[in-house]
């Protein structure tokens, strides 16, 4: 049976625990799965707790694990996210807005940087969400690395560009596309708020050492909504 794992830290403040279980229930509904709770007893060593959560995430049928997010540290939720082959949903802790604990996931933001790896990572999740009628919004942010080389006529260029971007990077029909300019992390957070999304889905490399995953860390730190981190399959062959 497919399920979403709710990782409840008994030492956390109640509002955070409620946010985790609420998010897990909403995600389970959107993914047509059950919820399975696992409790981390108060006083447990962080390393032991992480190892236990990772074992739970490896269980067959686990679609995602929901944890209360925290600052990047060698252990804790980020440790789990870095080492889990199963997607992890990090819930803002404590919740930054008065989100109803059992709110449904009706709109999901899919930031895509244009890499095949990121697209491949979120494709499966996007498909699962689409099945239950979740509104999918794809976001691509232009920065120095991703800005197109050519933009011929403002009257026509976006349609051709966006159509092709979606064709290559997001197979779901009916997806809406948003384009922004600037820093990716900042724009994702802003668009998530402006579009009133309930969840952000990100593909990521699971590397958080210095200089890596800055965008992911920024989004998790600043977004008001849970962030689902999906491990990106390692690139075949040497990196360019």
């Amino acid at each position, binding site marked *: 049976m497919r399920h979403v794992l709710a990782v409840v830290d008994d030492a956390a403040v109640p509002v955070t625990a409620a946010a985790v279980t609420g998010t897990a229930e909403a995600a389970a509904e959107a993914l047509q799965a059950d919820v399975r709770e696992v409790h981390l007893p108060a006083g447990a060593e962080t390393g032991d707790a992480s190892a236990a959560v990772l074992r739970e995430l490896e269980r067959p049928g686990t679609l995602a694990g929901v944890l209360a997010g925290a600052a990047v540290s060698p252990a804790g939720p980020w440790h789990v996210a870095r080492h889990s082959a199963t997607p992890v949903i990090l819930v803002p802790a404590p919740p930054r807005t008065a989100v109803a604990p059992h709110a449904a996931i009706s709109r999901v933001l899919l930031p895509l940087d244009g890499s*095949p790896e990121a697209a491949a990572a979120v494709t499966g999740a996007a498909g699962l969400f689409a099945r239950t009628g979740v509104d999918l919004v794809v976001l691509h942010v*232009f920065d*120095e690395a991703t*800005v*197109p*080389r*050519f*933009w*011929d*006529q*403002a*009257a*026509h*260029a*976006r*349609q*051709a*560009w966006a*159509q*092709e*971007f979606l*064709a*290559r990077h997001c*197979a779901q029909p009916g997806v809406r596309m*948003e*384009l*922004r*300019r600037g820093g990716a992390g900042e724009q994702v957070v802003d668009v998530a708020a402006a579009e009133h999304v309930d969840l952000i889905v990100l593909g990521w490399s699971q590397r958080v050492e210095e200089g890596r995953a800055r965008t992911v860390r920024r989004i998790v730190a600043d977004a008001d909504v849970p962030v689902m981190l999906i491990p990106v399959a390692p690139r075949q062959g040497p990196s360019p």
Partner: protein
Amino acid sequence: MGEPDGRLRDRTFEAVVIGWYATGVPRGASAVPVRRRVEALCAAGVDVAVMSGEDVGAVDGRLHVRPRGPGRLWLGASGGTELYEVRGDGPRPGWPIAGSGDDFSPDGRYAGIGPVDGAGSMRAVFAYLAGRGIGAGLVLIVADRFGPPGGAVAHGEIPLIPEAGRATAVSVGPEPGGVAPNLLHLGGGPAELLRVLDHQVRRRRHLRIPAVDDDPAWTIRETGADPSRHRVAEALLTLGSGGLATRGSVEEPVAKSVPMVLVSGVYTGSGAGQRLLPGPRWTGFALRPPAGEDLRMLDLRTGVLAREERGHDSPVRTVRLACVTRPGVVAMRAEAGVGRLRAGPPLQPPADGRSTTGRLSGHRWTRVTDGHAGIAAVAAQRVGRDGGVRTLERIAAYTAGPARPPVPRDALAALEAAERLGFDRLLAEQRAAWAARWRAVDIRIPGDPAAQLAVRFALFQLWNNVGRYDEAAVGARGLSGGAYAGHVFWDADVFVLPAVVSMDPAAARAMVAYRLHRLTAARARAAASGRAGARFPWESAATGEDVTPVSGHLGGEAVPVRTGQLEEHITADVAWAAVHYARWSGDRAFLAGPARPLLVETARYWASRCRVDDGGRAHIDGVIGPDEYHEAVADNAFTNVMARWNLRRAAGLLDPGCAEGRRWRALADRLVDGYDPVSGRYEQFAGYFRREPLTMAEVAAPPVAADLLLGRERVAATQIIKQPDVLMLHHLVPEETGAGSLEANLDFYGPRTAHGSSLSPAITACLLARAGRPDEALKLLRVALALDLEDLTGTTAAGLHLATFGGVWQALLAGFAGARVRDGTLLLDPRLPTAWEGLGLRFRCLGRRVRLDITREAVDVRTDGPLRVRLDAGDLRHVTGPAHLPRQSR
């Protein structure tokens, strides 16, 4: 009967060369078995050459074939030194090719063979075949003894001449000493020869897939390995003719695929919503299981698109073409395992169009119409079987109505004529027609095969997308996709037309005719804005009214689109295109005749558009120049100078005593142009030099869409420009610019140019070459060459960038070769980049076919008639035929 070796089994050849001794027919004996096969091959359209060391009488007496066509029979005799064509009345001596070395022999056939020796007849046959578009890869050579590759031949040996390098050479002899690596040794003697020939006859009779010559100098390949390329390939592999084009989508339904048939000038919708109407599709069939990885190959030399699946026992193979000689007629053959390929109906409606279907004289028709315009097709198909292979042959003919729904019956005669001819002969016609095109227009860049192929691709797609001769509405993406809605921009007039006029002057004239036929709408537009004359729209479609949308996006930012309102230079660009057509083609009567109203009315518009200040200086306020990063500017140098040129050029058409003409000249003299003779620079518009002096070195490496990166307002506050603006004057009307000002403006505006428009790299390359900076020019030319082939824009899938193709050819012709026409003289001023040792160009100019072979030391010019040529500003030369012109000044 056993099947031949695998290298022969799946290949249908277009020509067969037979070594006579392989027949094993002794002197005095009859050659009935061979005769029957040769007769069957010729009847099936295969050209056959029989090569012998004996005299012609001895061979013909035994073979005694009297072909009735369509395939021809040649007899090479006396050890290859004699060649005869055999017709109904027997062998006729003579070479098929005039051997003068002049490519433009009086009958228009290819020439250029060398001295006659033991390989002379082989060279002549291969040259003849090349002239018919039959590359060596389509030739089968069967003999029992071969000479060494490229070496002298002994009596009875078949010479392996270099021209035959890609031919399939098969030995049926004993070959006791072994065979050359590229030779297929079957052995088996005369019996094997007959089996090989029988197999070819059988493949013809069973409608098997014809072969495509996989010559790397002429083929664009798409392996299908990269899924993100699939839709790009659909655009790249577009085939078109006569104003109708089919995207290169695979035949079976595939997710995300956008198959489309579009017709030039046939739009649906209204206002800014006008877009090209997709027509019925003709290439579809079902394939179960679906195809795996395949190789798709576009043969530029013959205008044929082929497909072959890899790694399957019964692979799907297809070949399709858009008939050059029969506009509106398309044809396809396909094959796959029985039970796997299901033909289905020959015509299918587009994904988003209303259609009706019916039958007509036993053929199925489909029509798509919006009630005002429409596209209809009538199709025939044959489904057959060859052992375990299902075969499909489909021919369709189209008719279209830009202003009324078409009648399917109008296409019936074309379909029936094509059917009577049959697929093989349609294909032969196609190959010959494309060979004729390439004899007239082509490029050779020794040592740079990638650039050569990319330029050929550009020429190929210009031919595919621009092919109507009544009037040609050439949209920004041609007929290769739905992007830009098929709207016609200045791309057509300034970028595509100058290329097309050097390829097919009649097609260029049709592009001008498109504008001429919409002069009434242009007059109405001018009147509506309180002006006189005619104002052409920034975006145009069916009627000539302005169809520019009023809103759009810069990335994710919704922006008002003001080009329709303000980008007025299009009016002068249209006039310039008419003049350029007349000047380059030598159509002297055109300007004083059909184009005169266009020149006069556009001048009237400018005369009414200018504002004269208290000091008597004339201005044009509130425009957008080619650099679209700066909007609503005053006195844009490009707009003003083009208007000035328009006024003066039109005044020249009026009676010298005409008061209106005098007023135009006086106004033109008063138009400010922002030129500073001290610095040699033009100020792009009033106040431009006061903008922040940012250069691209401080922003990002071009090409880049700087407006997306910096934002609209930020980029407008700087001197960063999207594409050549002032410099377009040096490209279009250099005679209107300050003497020697090209270099100064290149130095100034070059570092400020983002090249964020796909129009920019090729034209800048042209200007750099003319300025004596060919190495820099080549770098930008390579960007332009890769623009679609490597999908640099990320939007090629939605259509090819025709203006880039036109710019590429202009860069070669006007830039690197320095070819211009002035006063009926072809001016040449070549500038070769260091990486090129030479450059060969073929093109049309002043009613002649011209061939240039350029080196640093000399230019060899060949023409098919008298032509006035001036090289490097030297003496005027009257060239007729070949001329060697040494470089004088470099």
